[in-house]
């Protein structure tokens, strides 16, 4: 293999390593040492669809966890100023093979707390390891349902209180719906993408870090409203891309 490639790879890997280290130390407030980043906000225009309340009465334990805060569906989470949470943003075009194939080393956790999934949407890189943990004293079963015919293989495992975390990863790009059969209202997503990604926070803002300069197509995915794309050109100073979903 040629040296240029080697150097590039080394650069990326070191960058990744740095980012991880930084992330490890500074938690969320990290700014990537190298590589620019794409930032922006996702908003919802029009009236937000009505989110039904969730009645957990079949399992008293779950009810106890939410005694003084009624729970609603999380399919559409509106933050202050119409910001749309739980939107996954990723680069769908323009990445060269090796940025795409680089797999982040950190292992996000998918927690079951108060009979809800935290986070509701978990974005993952292809082959990125993740942990499913439970903070509840009731048994859950985790049942990801990849689309029929996808190369991801679905599974259905129970996690009694005190059971160790379930470690796993996904082979192919795909938004995978995750449910708990024991608590039918429990519903979340594993959104598997290639390359750098970000998930909007409660105000709908996001930052995709470590994007080398170049021109890309950024895609925003939302479980109810589907996807939107934008072409962006990333300079050294990074780039901005806002999205607006229209509610029906």
């Amino acid at each position: 293999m040629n040296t240029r490639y080697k150097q590039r790879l080394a650069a990326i890997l070191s960058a990744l390593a740095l980012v991880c280290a930084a992330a490890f130390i500074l938690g969320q407030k990290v700014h990537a040492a190298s590589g620019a980043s794409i930032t922006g906000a996702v908003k919802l225009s029009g009236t937000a669809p009505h989110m039904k309340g969730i009645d957990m009465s079949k399992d008293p334990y779950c009810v106890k966890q939410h005694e003084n805060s009624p729970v609603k569906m999380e399919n559409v989470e509106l933050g202050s100023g119409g910001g749309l949470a739980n939107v996954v943003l990723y680069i769908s075009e323009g990445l060269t093979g090796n940025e795409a194939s680089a797999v982040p080393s950190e292992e996000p956790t998918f927690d079951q707390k108060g009979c809800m999934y935290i986070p509701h949407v978990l974005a993952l890189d292809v082959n990125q390891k993740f942990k499913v943990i439970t903070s509840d004293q009731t048994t859950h079963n985790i049942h990801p349902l990849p689309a029929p015919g996808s190369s991801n293989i679905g599974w259905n495992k129970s996690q009694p209180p005190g059971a160790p975390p379930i470690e796993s990863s996904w082979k192919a790009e795909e938004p995978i719906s995750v449910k708990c059969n024991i608590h039918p209202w429990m519903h979340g997503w594993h959104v598997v993408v290639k390359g750098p990604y970000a998930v909007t926070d409660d105000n709908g803002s996001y930052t995709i870090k470590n994007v080398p300069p170049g021109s890309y197509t950024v895609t925003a995915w939302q479980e109810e409203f589907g996807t939107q794309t934008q072409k962006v050109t990333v300079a050294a100073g990074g780039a901005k891309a806002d999205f607006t979903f229209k509610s029906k």
Partner: protein
Amino acid sequence: MAKFFAVTIFAIAILSAIPILRHTWWMAPDISTHGAPIDEQMSETMAEAGISFLASQLILGLFIWKFSNPRSGDKIKSFPGGAKAMVWAAFLLVGTEVLALGVFGAKAWANVYFTAPSPEAMPVQVQAGQFAFYFRYPGPDGSFATIHPDLISEANQNFYGIDADHDPDAKDDIVTAEMAIPVNREIHLLMHSKDVGHSFFVPELRVQQDFVPGLDLSLHFTATKIGRYEIVCTQLCGLGHYNMKAYLSVLSPQDFDDWLKKQAALQ
């Protein structure tokens, strides 16, 4: 050895009978209008079963006590009356016994299942699925929206596959995870399963009925006592079977209306 055996049998027989007689573990008190004959039938059966149980265990023990450890001298005797006596005993005692049970039992059963619900019975729909019950009240218009299986989605809390956009009946349907009914009002329960076999069991209501996928079954009952009871699934339906339950609230008519309003708001 044999005497010891006899004593053991006595002990076991009596010890087993005590919790039954003291009702240490017993059926929950009946809150239904149709339950009385069932309870009656239960205690009659218990009496007859208990008597046959104790009697035969004691006789068994007695004979073992008396006729074991033979000395070489004594000769065997044959039971006076021989086999004929036994056959007659079986036919007369047990025959009449089970026949009586059968007939009264049939009455109690008919009382539950051969009567049609009265026209003003309140319709409530229950759908069983892995692993929860969901209930549906028709709302003011008194008609249920059509179920579209392809629209059923727990992710969107559309448990009944209601087509809210096009179905006029859909707007006021009330779907709940908990069942509430007004006290002393006959309920006409319309049962169906969305996936596999389940069952609807409320001990206090003296009601147990399977959900049979592909069949629409119905029950009717009247609860006579305000309180909060449990509906459990008794038909193995999968890994969450043990956790498939719902609460049944029997409310005063006033409370029931309030409850219904509250639920309507949550839709």
